[in-house]
């Protein structure tokens, strides 16, 4: 956007140039243009020197000639190196008493500046071809007023290397404050601006590479995990940063033979990577075509390497020019197609943005190609350097929108997730509730069964017995009373069974004793209590406890009603993991092999139900009922 200086002079031609310059400056920068316009009259003394007598030595020949400035060495000598001595006379109305200065937009590649036989400045070695390149930055040289006379002569000696844009731009001489303005403006656009581009591009490039390294898609495998969009953008930006940094490097770390091709490679790397970036943004990921694209770009990139090397080796800038023309030749249609597709409805916003930036860059690239490679313009500034920054901006936009989308997605996911978790929890709670309900129902059912059996075997049977006894009229009231007491005892035992700790045989026996105590007291039987503190028997559930209670009750009832015993011993011992219960009485005994009484058969049945072993041994004077619980 910035351009070479076009200083004013009092001549008509110079005024024309001044206007042209002012317009271009305005186009470039409105503010700067206004400043220039405001100070135009004050710069009347600044002179632009465009004619020189020159002694040019190139290709072994020396000629004396008159040249007009700027003198673009490569255009005159087609890549051959050489030296030139330019004599530029100028006159002043009088000897000035203020400091003067000389400003040259571009000179070199090495140079010496003399005024009236005095050396003002020297940069580089005039004899060392392909030495350091001092032609890259604009030069501002202070001129002490005491050196100036009415008639003066600048003698400028340059060394120009082939293909390195050596030569001499127009000279601007005048009061230092005014000359400084031209220098400052060009310095800003060419040097400071380049530095800013280098810094920003490096930064964007590194961030992009960092994104490429850190942002991975876990659903993909291998390299596909990473988003190559960031890789291409990063490579492009870093290559570009190095390419632009060249503007600031006068003495490269390696010889020009390596450095110049490297710069060509940077440029082609930028072009190729940016193309891939554009393709990625547009989402043209169709495999076959993408591979062809990559192959083409790879070849083009390699070509850049060779052309850069060849151009340096044979000192033939035309080769590079051809290479850049080739780049334009495919970039132009690519940009147009890209734009056309972006213009279709449904294209992504990033695609459209990149299309605009791409088109602008291709157009500006064409302009730069014309200015630097094809026209005679000398010392002009590159616009592409700045327009390339637009890619960095689009990358920022893409990264931001992606992160916004990702965080929105994450929020959605979280909301979704918690909703699903809540739903699962509800389902779980529901099924748990159902399970619990089922368990409760089952519990109720088994409880009902137990109560019904209790009523049937216990209270019910006793009451019906009592009724039969009363109906027959033969039973004594004591017999009926006994039946009813039995019935109530059974009822109490069945209520106690509800609270019996499962498996606790000691508690079961203690309770039985407590309930039957009045009967023992009434029957004059001595009770010997030999019950150990037993560990609960794990396998006895509530139902088994009730069955066992029945069995022991039955055994004790037999002793109370039929045995006519005087001593009853109740024993409980641990036996392995189980328990052995014994009731031993000294009564008359009974025949354990004879058809069993109802009570005894009921005991055997119950023992079978709970898996207990029942042993009965009876002889007059000693009857043992033994219940093994394993």
């Amino acid at each position: 956007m910035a351009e070479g200086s076009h200083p004013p002079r009092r001549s008509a031609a110079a005024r024309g140039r001044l206007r042209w310059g002012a317009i271009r400056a305005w186009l470039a920068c409105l503010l700067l243009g206004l400043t220039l316009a405001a100070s135009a009259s004050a710069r009347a003394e600044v002179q632009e020197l465009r004619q020189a007598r020159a002694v040019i030595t190139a290709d072994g020949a020396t000629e004396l000639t008159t040249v007009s400035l700027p003198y673009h060495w490569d255009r005159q000598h087609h890549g051959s190196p050489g030296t030139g001595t330019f004599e530029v006379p100028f006159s002043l109305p009088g000897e000035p008493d203020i400091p003067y200065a000389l400003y040259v937009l571009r000179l070199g590649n090495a140079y010496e500046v003399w005024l009236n036989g005095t050396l003002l400045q020297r940069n580089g070695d005039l004899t060392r071809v392909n030495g350091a390149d001092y032609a890259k930055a604009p030069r501002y040289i202070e001129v002490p007023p005491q050196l100036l006379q009415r008639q003066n002569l600048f003698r400028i000696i340059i060394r120009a290397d082939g293909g390195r844009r050596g030569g001499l731009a127009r000279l601007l001489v005048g009061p230092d404050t005014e000359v400084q303005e031209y220098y400052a403006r060009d310095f800003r656009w060419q040097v400071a601006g380049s530095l800013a581009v280098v810094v920003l591009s490096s930064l964007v490039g590194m961030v992009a590479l960092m994104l490429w390294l850190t942002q991975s898609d876990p659903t993909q495998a291998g390299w596909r995990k990473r988003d190559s969009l960031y890789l291409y953008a990063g490579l492009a930006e870093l290559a570009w940063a190095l390419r632009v940094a060249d503007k600031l490097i006068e003495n490269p770390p390696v010889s020009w033979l390596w450095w110049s091709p490297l710069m060509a490679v940077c440029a082609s790397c930028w072009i190729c990577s940016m193309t891939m970036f554009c393709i990625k943004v547009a989402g043209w990921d169709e495999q076959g075509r993408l591979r062809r694209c990559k192959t083409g770009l790879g070849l083009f990139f390699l070509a850049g390497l060779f052309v850069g090397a060849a151009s340096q080796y044979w000192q033939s800038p035309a080769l590079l020019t051809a290479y850049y023309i080739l780049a334009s030749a495919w970039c132009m249609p690519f940009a147009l197609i890209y734009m056309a597709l972006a213009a279709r409805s449904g294209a992504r916003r990033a695609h459209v943005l990149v299309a605009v930036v791409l088109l602008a860059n291709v157009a500006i690239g064409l302009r730069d190609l014309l200015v630097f490679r094809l026209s005679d313009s000398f010392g002009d500034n590159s616009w592409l350097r700045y327009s390339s920054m637009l890619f960095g901006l689009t990358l920022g936009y893409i990264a931001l929108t992606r992160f916004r989308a990702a965080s929105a997605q994450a929020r959605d996911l979280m909301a979704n997730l918690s909703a699903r978790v809540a739903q699962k929890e509800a389902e779980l709670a529901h099924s748990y509730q159902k399970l619990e309900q089922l368990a409760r129902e089952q519990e109720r059912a088994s409880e009902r069964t137990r109560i019904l059996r209790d009523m049937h075997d216990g209270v019910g049977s006793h009451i019906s017995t009592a009724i039969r006894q009363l109906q027959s009229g033969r039973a004594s009231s004591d017999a009926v009373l006994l039946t009813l007491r039995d019935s109530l005892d059974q009822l109490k035992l069945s209520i106690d069974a509800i609270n019996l700790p499962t498996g606790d045989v000691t508690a079961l026996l203690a309770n039985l004793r407590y309930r039957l105590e009045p009967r023992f007291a009434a029957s004059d039987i001595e009770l010997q209590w030999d019950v150990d503190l037993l560990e609960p028997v794990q396998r006895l559930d509530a139902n088994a406890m009730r069955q066992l209670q029945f069995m022991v009750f039955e055994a004790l009832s037999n002793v109370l009603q039929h045995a006519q015993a005087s001593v009853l011993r109740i024993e409980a011992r641990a036996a392995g993991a189980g328990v052995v219960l014994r009731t031993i009485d000294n009564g008359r005994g009974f025949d354990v092999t004879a058809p069993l009484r109802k009570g005894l058969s009921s005991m055997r049945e119950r023992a079978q139900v709970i898996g207990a072993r029942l042993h009965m041994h009876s002889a007059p004077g000693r009857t043992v009922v033994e219940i093994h619980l394993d």
Partner: protein
Amino acid sequence: MTAWRVLIVEDDPVMREFFAASVSRSPRLALAASLGTMGEALAWLGDPSNAVDVLLTDLGLPDGSGLDVIRHATRLHPACEPLVISMFGDEDNVLASIEAGALGYIHKDSTPDDIAHTVLEMKAGASPISPMIARRVLFKYRSLQAARPRAPASEPAQPAGQDAGSGTAQAVRSLLSGREQDVLELIARGFSYQEIARLQSVSVHTVQTHIKNLYSKLAVHSKNEAVFEATRLGLLPRHG
């Protein structure tokens, strides 16, 4: 020797008559009154001209719970010793009665002699206890004992509960002496008072006294526990 004055509260008229007759038969007992509802009982107890030594009350009264009659009687007549008339002597009802202040229970199917005997035994210092109830008391005591040591550490930021809480802890600590605990364990294992007396080398009377003391402690403890709960819930103002 004067006879103990007995108040009977029982809604079933036949039962009431039976108990009244059983009491009247004993020369050492005198029937003070025999009533059928809680309302009547509370009114009778509230009359300062009435005196009572023993309360026999059913739990399921038509207009309320016998537990309230027990609480009322022990509050208005500190000398009155309540007994609960229970059909089964089942542990839930008996424990609730003990905690309300009852000192024993009488089965509905007891013989008239048994009834008088039980009342007189109680007045002489003996309270009946079943192995099941002994087991329950032990269990409750042990779980309280296990829970208590943690309480002061977990509740320092709750001064509201601390006074009442430490009071409860005090009550638990003094709830059972070592000897009382031994007696309870033997009862839970089915041993009779005589067997326990022999095993412990004490008199039967001492064993009986342990049990009766235990009854009073359980009532006091349950009262403390109620105060603690009420304070914790903010129903009672904090003291101290």
